[in-house]
């Protein structure tokens, strides 16, 4: 059950374990390499002492026993260092939220709440579309009204022009004039009758 420390990785950009593994490997390599260097120095020194009766395998044994000891101590110490670093330095306490994740603190919506929110937005969009359609219709009607009104005004102006034509020819009011003419005409016809009767 490895703890991938993914939240820490999200923050550091590397997995803490890998970071320490790299340090472990590097330290271990150094220990081995430097051990070998020390051994080389001793062997070279021995080359200058031919009658020392010390064989290179003896030196190798010395190297191995010192290295085994150091390696054990290294493992112990590194194990302690690793657990301290992983738990107290390279770890993010569980009550801590990274700033980049603040949204999750402010907007922790369940799936249902999220879908509800999306429905509300969808409904609002439909309402807006409905209003937009209504607006369209109203604008169309306003245009039609403009045209209709222009037509009606034209008709009224036509009536005005008729009356004005009458006025220009001395007829202030057609109805009265016609009534007068009709009266006069009927008077004329009754006069004519009268005259005809007298002449008979």
């Amino acid at each position: 059950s490895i703890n991938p420390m993914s939240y820490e990785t999200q923050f550091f950009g590397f997995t803490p374990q890998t970071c320490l593994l790299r340090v472990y490997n590097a330290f271990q390599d150094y220990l081995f390499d430097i051990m070998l260097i020390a051994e080389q120095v001793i062997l070279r020194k021995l080359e200058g002492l031919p009658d020392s009766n010390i064989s290179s395998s003896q030196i190798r044994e010395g190297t191995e026993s010192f290295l085994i000891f150091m390696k054990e101590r290294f493992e112990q110490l590194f194990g302690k260092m690793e657990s301290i670093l992983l738990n107290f330095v390279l770890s993010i306490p569980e009550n801590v939220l990274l700033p980049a994740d603040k949204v999750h603190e402010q907007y922790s919506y369940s799936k249902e709440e999220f879908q509800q929110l999306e429905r509300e937005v969808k409904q609002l969009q439909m309402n807006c579309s409905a209003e937009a359609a209504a607006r369209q219709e109203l604008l169309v009607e306003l245009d039609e009204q403009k045209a209709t009104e222009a037509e009606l005004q034209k008709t009224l102006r036509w009536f005005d022009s008729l009356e004005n034509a009458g006025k220009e020819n001395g007829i202030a009011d057609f109805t009265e004039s016609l009534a007068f003419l009709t009266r006069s005409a009927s008077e004329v016809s009754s006069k004519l009758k009268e005259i005809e009767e007298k002449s008979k």
Partner: protein
Amino acid sequence: FDENIVETTTKRKQYPRKIAAHFIKILKTERE
């Protein structure tokens, strides 16, 4: 395994922002 963790967490760090940027464009287009 390590690469997976790093890759996943990198996505967790970067992708929401990228997606949100596209999401904002979608909302803007819907507005228009």
